[in-house]
């Protein structure tokens, strides 16, 4: 009946005529090649340092333009993809993780990075944070936590401390803030790290380690909002008279209970990898299901598999 109208699509005409370079011929990308739009962040914003170190990571690890995909939701932090000269997607509020999961699960050849803020990741996207962690979908999530809604100009965020005066809590925040590290642990995240924009070396170390982690790697990066919550993290910054305390050397990163204790310390708390464990990724588990199923139909073209299925429906 309707077999005739299936909307055929002509092949792409825009293929590159120049033969592609081989891996060996390519040089690591420079900051200049990686920089795209000039960031729209306010001068002094902590997010600048995350961006600079992301460039550095790509350069250091020799990742190519086309092999990295940068995904974000909505918020100041989530403008990230526009500032990176690589494939990127700026998705809707709170849903960067499922979007990034779709890429990760269907394209094992790509490095998937999601950048998010405290509102995007823990409030509107809270459900996805838990489920992406428990499913251990391979990607890196960096949450630039500034304890405030910046893009919408100073409303209370899920990580705003009690008493924080915002436009939605003029008398000071009354709701218990979320502890993202404890949440990540409870949800089953397999890599949990904490860092801050004021310590670039540490931030790069954490991103480096996250990239090497086979699974869902979560980095909480304190990133000061100089406009709406200035000085929020001063007590963690030695240059402002604070203390930057790293996770104790003898901490066992596979000890969930110990990690929970470290995560619960009052601010400024501990920085570094709090928890890291090895559990099969969703990517690997799905690949195994696929391999098992395909071993039973080996040598058959897709149309032949479908034919076999239909033979049973006659």
């Amino acid at each position, binding site marked *: 009946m*309707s*077999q005739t*109208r*299936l*909307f*055929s*699509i002509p*092949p*792409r005409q*825009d*293929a*590159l*005529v*120049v033969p*592609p370079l081989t891996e060996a011929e390519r040089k690591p990308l420079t900051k200049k*090649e990686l920089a*795209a739009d000039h960031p729209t962040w306010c001068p002094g914003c902590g997010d600048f340092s995350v961006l600079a170190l992301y460039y550095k990571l790509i350069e250091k690890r020799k990742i*190519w*333009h*086309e*092999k990295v995909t940068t995904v974000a939701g909505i918020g100041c932090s989530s403008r990230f*993809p*526009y500032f990176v*000269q*690589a*494939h*990127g*997607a*700026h*998705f*809707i509020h709170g*849903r960067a*993780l*499922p*979007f*990034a*999961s*779709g*890429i990760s*699960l*269907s*394209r094992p050849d*790509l490095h998937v990075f999601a950048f998010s803020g405290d509102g995007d990741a823990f409030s509107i996207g809270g*459900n*996805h944070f*838990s*489920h992406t962690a428990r499913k251990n979908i391979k990607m890196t999530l960096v949450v630039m936590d500034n304890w405030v809604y910046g893009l919408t100009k100073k409303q209370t965020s899920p990580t705003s401390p009690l008493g924080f005066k915002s436009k939605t809590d003029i008398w000071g925040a009354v709701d218990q803030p979320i502890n993202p590290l404890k949440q990540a642990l409870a949800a089953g995240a397999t890599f949990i790290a904490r860092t801050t924009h004021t310590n670039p070396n540490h931030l790069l170390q954490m991103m480096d380690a996250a990239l090497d982690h086979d699974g869902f790697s979560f980095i909480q990066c304190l990133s000061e909002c100089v406009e709406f919550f200035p000085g929020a993290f001063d007590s963690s910054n030695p240059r402002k008279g604070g203390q930057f305390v790293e996770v104790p050397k003898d901490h066992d990163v596979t000890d969930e209970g110990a990690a929970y204790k470290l995560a619960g310390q009052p601010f400024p708390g501990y920085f570094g990898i709090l928890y890291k464990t090895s559990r099969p990724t969703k990517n690997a588990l*799905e690949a195994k*299901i*696929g391999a098992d*199923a*395909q071993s039973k139909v080996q040598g058959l*073209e*897709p*149309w032949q598999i*479908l034919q076999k*299925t*239909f033979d049973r*429906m*006659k």
Partner: protein
Amino acid sequence: MSDTATTATRSDALRISDVPEAVIRIAGNSQDGIQAIGGFLARLAGRSEQEVMTFMTIPSTISGGPSIFQVRIGSGEVLSSGDEADVLLAFYQHSYNDHLHSLKKGGIVLFDSDHVEPNPEAAKSYHHIGVPISSRTVEAIGGVGREKGKNVFALGLLAKMFHLNVPKLEQLIQERFTGKDTSVAQNAVLAFHAGYSFQLENVVELFRFMEGQKRAGNQVVMNGNEAIAYGLIAAGVRFGAAYPITPWSDIMELLRRELPKYGGCFIQCEDEIASVSMAIGASYAGRVAITGSSGPGIALKSEAIGWAVMAEVPLVVVDVQRGGPSTGMPTNVEQSDLNLAAFGGHGDSPRVVIAPANVEDCFYTTIEAVNIARKYSVPVILLTDQAIATRIEAFQEPNFKEICQDITPDLTPVADHKPYDLAAPDGVTRHVAPGTRIGSGKYPVVTGLEHDEMGHPTGSPKLHMAMTAKRRRKLQALAAELPAPDVFGAPDGEVLLVGWGSTQGPIREAVTRARREGQAISSMNLTYINPLPNGLEEVFSRFRRVFVVEMNDGGLYGYGQLAAILRARFCDARIEGINKTDGLTWKVREVLDAVRERVASTAGKNGH
């Protein structure tokens, strides 16, 4: 069996009448396996030369609850599940009480005398045959289980009554239970034969289906949800994500099971929003992905679908409609998500909406949906419904070798790429997936913010106007490519019935019946709803009245959802709505009665 043929032969002192078709309604509880009986009958018909159409209601309760399955088998074309049943098979008192009315006068009610006390009054209108189905089943299979197998016993009774092909049925029973303990299949065959050889008392005649027309090729038998799932596989889709909801869940269950064989996977997500987002992410990664749901879930997905419109990322969304609003009637049918599908987004967000008309059409329309999404980089909503999802039909087996597509993403490097090139003909740009190297070193960002040609944010009034027009022009180009729908009946006349989706069958049958009675009625079924194909006004102009027949409310102003779109589009005062909201499919008689009433009540008005 209203048209019982005259040839009658004598056999075993019982008359055997040749019938062109029969409608059999089986009523029981959902755990009785009555859908299995329906499935056996449908499959048998598909393997013979009969057409088949089924109609199923499933209760939304967790276990048990009344359930029915109606199967219409005919030697000619069968378009609807049939208005009245010729035979009612009632397992319980409530089945008997609730469904006797669905039987035509003089019809046969076959009841389980272990559970049903017949009504003496009703015995005057319907031919009653009591069979101790429960106790005989237990007897036949050695007293195991709690009446399990009585569905197959009942199938045996029907096989006797309708002279069905016993070896073929045995074969079907064996196939159905392969993989299980061999005793299961053995018991089923025992129960079947016990039913088949049971001495039916009080029976005056047996029936035999007339030979159908020989059909070319093999017939396959499945329901609409299965046809959609396999259509997606044939189209080359290898990734999907969804959240369970009735009546969509079968599609995701099937894809979860089948996709791994093809190197794909289907993900069950934490919620509807995650699932549409994950599908869009996978589509962005290069191969069109799918998500689906029913009305409540589609409402939740709406924001993300709007993103796919804005970002110009292809996507297929299946909406298996049920009664709404809100949780509504989860196991009933309604065509009330059309507005949601076509307009359910904030901002100007043109998307494609297409609606398959029957089970076979589900298979092919799904492939089209995938290809439209790819070609125009746009979300396509495949609008089906509970009735088409659950009914089983036989159709000619597709030519898989020809139809199966490979849509592996093309990652060949490109020299330069503007994701939102305003100079592209008709505004149609192709999505270039991550992993594609771009010679110029300028990489695209796909985004929900209004953007320039490279995908970078802009507040420019000019660009917003140009990009809004670009997103719209793509669909106008698609409209020009769409075939005009066929008119069923004569090309002109008094009344044109316009329907969409699953109502095609009953509407066509109504037209056939009306034309036989000399009425100048034709019909037209719309598959492409947004955008509409060009040239419909010319079709409308050839009729004096245009009635849009829909399973939704006439609304505040008297027009159903499609009728309102058509009136807005064509400004044609001849367009009127015929609507119903009982959560059931159109019966042929209901359509004809509504048309007659409308024509009578407005005759003489407007100079008619």
